[in-house]
């Protein structure tokens, strides 16, 4: 069992799949767990020889089997990310303390800058000063029941530790060809931004479909 879980953490580390579960702040736990569990498994193996061995109970065997199932599912299934289904169930990103207002007021605007700017009055003012600046943002397409056909919501999840604490960063994109992009499709949107209070609108001059990024979640 120790070896199986060690194998999972080595798999996550070597395949880069840890990015589908953890942020860059916490991905150090993967090599630590891989190393510790490998040592534990080897240690148990080396010290396993005893005069009288204790038989494994059938119930324990089945509990261990259940503990292997998540490992198998992670390894066997293709990697997936949170999508539109979760977008209206997560809280909005609150990044006032993470992004200094100065970073929002000057330099290249990232998705995290824009989302953080929507959190506080100072951030909103800094964002308002950027009205008309051209941005280039990568995210996935989200549409709600009230989203007009020529608009879309460009969404990205921001995680602090793991995906369980994901919050959403979102901008409204206008000038979209109706029906051109499917929900959950990854796109890169380029165009000027127009912050309107807590909402940020991007008037798309170009929208292109892109591959899902290797790190699908942004880190706060």
């Amino acid at each position, binding site marked *: *069992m*120790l070896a199986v*879980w060690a194998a999972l*953490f080595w798999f996550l580390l070597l395949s880069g799949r*840890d990015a589908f*579960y*953890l942020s860059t702040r*916490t991905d150090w*736990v*993967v090599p*630590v*767990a891989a190393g*510790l*569990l490998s040592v*534990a498994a080897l*240690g*148990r193996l080396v*010290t396993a020889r005893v005069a009288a061995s204790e*038989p*494994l*109970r*059938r*119930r324990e*065997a*089945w*509990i261990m*089997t*259940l*503990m*292997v199932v*998540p490992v*198998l*599912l*992670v390894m*066997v*299934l293709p990697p*997936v*990310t949170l999508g539109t*289904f*979760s977008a*209206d*169930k*997560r*809280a*909005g990103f*609150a990044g*006032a*303390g*993470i992004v200094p*207002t100065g970073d929002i007021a000057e330099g290249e605007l990232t998705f995290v800058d824009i989302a953080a700017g929507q959190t*506080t009055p100072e951030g909103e003012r800094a964002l308002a000063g950027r009205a008309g600046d051209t941005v280039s943002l990568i995210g996935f397409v989200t549409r709600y029941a009230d989203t007009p056909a020529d608009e879309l919501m460009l969404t990205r999840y921001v*995680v*602090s*530790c*793991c*995906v*369980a*604490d994901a*919050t959403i960063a979102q901008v409204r994109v206008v000038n979209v060809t109706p029906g051109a992009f499917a929900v959950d499709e990854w796109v890169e949107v380029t165009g000027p931004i127009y912050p309107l209070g807590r909402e940020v609108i991007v008037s798309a001059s170009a929208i292109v479909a892109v591959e899902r990024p290797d790190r699908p979640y942004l880190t*706060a």
Partner: protein
Amino acid sequence: MADIATRPRTATLRTAVAVAVALASVSVLARLADPSRVEWLRAYMVIFGSLLVQALPFVTLGAFAAALVEVFVPIGTLEKLGRLPRPLQLPAAALAGIAFPICECGSVPVARRLAQRGLMPSAAITFMLAAPVLNPVVIASTYVAYRGRSTLWTMVPGRFLLGFLVAIAAGWVLGARSKEELLKPAPKDAHEHTVELGRPEARWRKFFVHFGNDFLFMGRFLLLGATVAAAIQTFLPASVLTGIGGTPVVGLLVMMALAAALSLCSESDAFVAASFVQFGPSAQLAFLVSGPMVDAKLIALYGGTFRRGFVRTIVIVVAAATLVGTMWIGVIFG
């Protein structure tokens, strides 16, 4: 005859074959059916996987630390702590949590092992509850999450002080209960005495036996907790509760319930709490103090480690002490 009926059945070659077939079937079926095509199932799998991938390393670290305590810390060391004047024991145990910078899943096996090794059970529980709130990593993440807000100096010291007091209150309520009243016997504990101490190789054997057993013991309950927490996270919209954010007391209770349902790691929960701007600072504090002490995955871990009455006591005490504490903070700081 009765003895045969109650004797636990041992795994045989047939069991091994059945296990192998079951695992192979799960793999093939999962690959063929590809459950990730179903939206809710995809969300569930991502959240469940991330809870496990993040929490299991901390359980591993906790099992490692617990095994070190069991094998390499002389019994007398922990008994010396018990000789401290009684009013000092619980605060000392709570402050010891500062030196243990891992999240709540890791502190459970350590507390269990400390209690087994002779530390006063109430002190072990105080340590277990305090460590995930008081440790420096958690305080730093709380600071970062609230930096730039007017409530910063309510949230950071408030979380530390209230976490400290609630952990002590829980230890105080437990009083002089013995470890037998507190701990469920783990299946393997009864056999540990067969390892001969004194020789280095025997010590290492004991270390690895404890390390492996604690990991397996805690891991199964973590799995259970993550199953429940992921289901709640998948289907519960955060917005459903925010309409009642401004209602006094109810807001506190809602945030405590939300913390229990979401089962976030104490090192990241401040970022989520900070996003609930509809709730005041006292309600956000309730989320930050009670969450690392009582949540869905922890209740599963507690259920596997401690006797049922104790789990009930700890849930009630943590909820009541957090409620009273945050109400006072609400009165003082608004």
